[in-house]
């Protein structure tokens, strides 16, 4: 139990998707103009992550990895290795989950659906999400671990995007040089935020 809590804290703060791995940057930069929209996208990403990482774990464990199919086909399947299908299978799971989220949001909150625009379907190619599934495989996690990992990575990403959205809302009062307006200044802020997040690097849990 304590290990799961540690894993959660670690993937929210120490190995933050945005500030430690720079994953999921495109939607992080594009949808961080308002806190409420950012919150909506962050929740959507968290939801997708929480579902897809464990589902992908099941896929990996029972279909994709070497010898995984032996529960179905017996001993002769021990040599079947479908790992080369990993990326495409993971993406398929993610894309269908995103489709589901899209339908839910359109039904529940049309306003949020409108403000997220193209970036909602684009969650499907958000590298933070595929990245989490890949990390899950690479780090040889169990089912419980992968569920916690998916959820807390999402929370970490959510924290990052709402923090920068709040900063960008405050930036309305500043006088950024023309050449730096928009993405330029956002990149600078992200760098400075990354420096602040360095405070957690090195904590061994």
């Amino acid at each position, binding site marked *: 139990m304590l290990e799961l809590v540690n894993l959660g804290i670690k993937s929210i703060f120490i190995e933050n998707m945005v500030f430690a791995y720079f994953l999921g940057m495109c939607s992080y930069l594009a949808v961080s103009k308002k806190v409420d929209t950012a919150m909506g996208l962050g929740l959507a990403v968290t939801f997708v992550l929480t579902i897809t990482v464990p589902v992908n774990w099941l896929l990996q464990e029972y279909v994709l990895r070497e010898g995984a199919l032996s529960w179905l086909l017996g001993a002769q399947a021990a040599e079947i290795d479908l790992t080369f299908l990993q990326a495409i299978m993971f993406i398929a799971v993610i894309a269908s989950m995103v489709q589901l989220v899209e339908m839910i949001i359109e039904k529940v909150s049309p306003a949020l659906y409108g403000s997220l625009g193209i970036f909602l379907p684009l969650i499907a190619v958000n590298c933070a999400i595929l990245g989490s599934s890949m990390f899950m495989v690479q780090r040889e996690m169990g089912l419980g671990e992968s569920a916690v990992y998916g959820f807390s990575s999402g929370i970490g990403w959510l924290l990052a995007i709402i923090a920068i959205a*709040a*900063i960008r809302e405050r930036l309305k009062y500043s006088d950024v040089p023309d050449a730096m307006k928009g993405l330029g200044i956002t990149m600078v802020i992200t760098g*400075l935020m990354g420096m602040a*997040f360095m405070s957690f690097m090195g904590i061994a849990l």
Partner: protein
Amino acid sequence: MKFLREKLDNIKPDFEKGGKFEKFHYLFEAVDTILYVPKEVTGSKGVQVKDANDLKRLMMTVVIALVPALLFGMYNVGYQHYAATGVTDASFGDMFIYGAIQVLPIVLVAYAVGGMVEGTFSVLRKHPLAEGFLVTGMLVPLCIPASIPLWQVAVAMIFAVVLGVEVFGGVGTNVLNVALTARAFLYFAYPTDISGNVWTSGIEGANLVEGFTGATPLAIANATPAGESVVATLEASSYGGINFGFMDMFLGFIPGSIGETSTLAILLGAILLIATGVASWRIMVGVFGGAYLTGLLLNALAVNAYMGMPAHYHLVIGGLAFGAVFMATDPVTAAHTTVGKWVYGILIGVLTVIIRVFNPAYPEGIMLAILLMNVFAPLIDHYVVESNKKMRLKRATV
């Protein structure tokens, strides 16, 4: 002094619109308003301001509040130097002069470089010369060790003023505390010059006496072997007649960054800041309270020696007091709402102790804790404002 005023008035037209030095208008204005109170007054109709307090006076108050820490820092640099080199008969004057020779160049470099960068930007971007660098130029030298190479001070000032402030449009618009940005830049770019055995200046070759470790109390506390008490280890590890007892650390006779060692001198500054209303007492109380309570909690859980360090030690050791009083209270980067200030302050205190105790990579946590909360301050404010709105809407519809 009358001729100065006349001289300024004489050349003033050159700097006005259409004059030959029109470009340098804001530089002229900065000099003028530093020397004399501006003459412009509000007419009989319109909003009247009852106090002449402005950004310049606000900043100068902070600088004055920093003076005790600066003076004590100079003295302590000399004190540490003579203690480490084994000279026992150095007088107060010797120590102070040695310290001043070490510290003043750093302050001068910080002011000169900061001023030049600000000046350049104010001319190029045509905004009034901001007074922020008066405080930054003083804070940066006080939070770094006296043995720092001067060029690093210059590089850090340029980085902090350009990427920390000017890129956002000048004082009042920055996201992270400028002085801490400079320190964090140094910390990550030149780690060997700002951590480890650098805290006492002037220790080279032959001067190095046996038994001198140069470790700060924080480093010693961090490295306390299991099963031993931190307090005992601190008190046992003395050099040159310096002990690391609670009182020594409160008064500040310990190695450390120039201005951070003496909690007493910092508290003197804090009294001035609170009395004049320049800094928020809520943030200070929040930081100290958060750190103390986290310390108590860790004491109760104590599984290793460092966690068992008495909670009140956390308040005097390292740079917590300096950060809490002068850095966390920066009115621009702190939370702006009243509730937000409490949340912001307490979280800084909690995070500082957590980073100190649990992160072996950083013996000191206050710098990164403040930077991290600077990042989240706008978010805290956002939610405080939103919940206020909700509360008032509820009241309105009843």
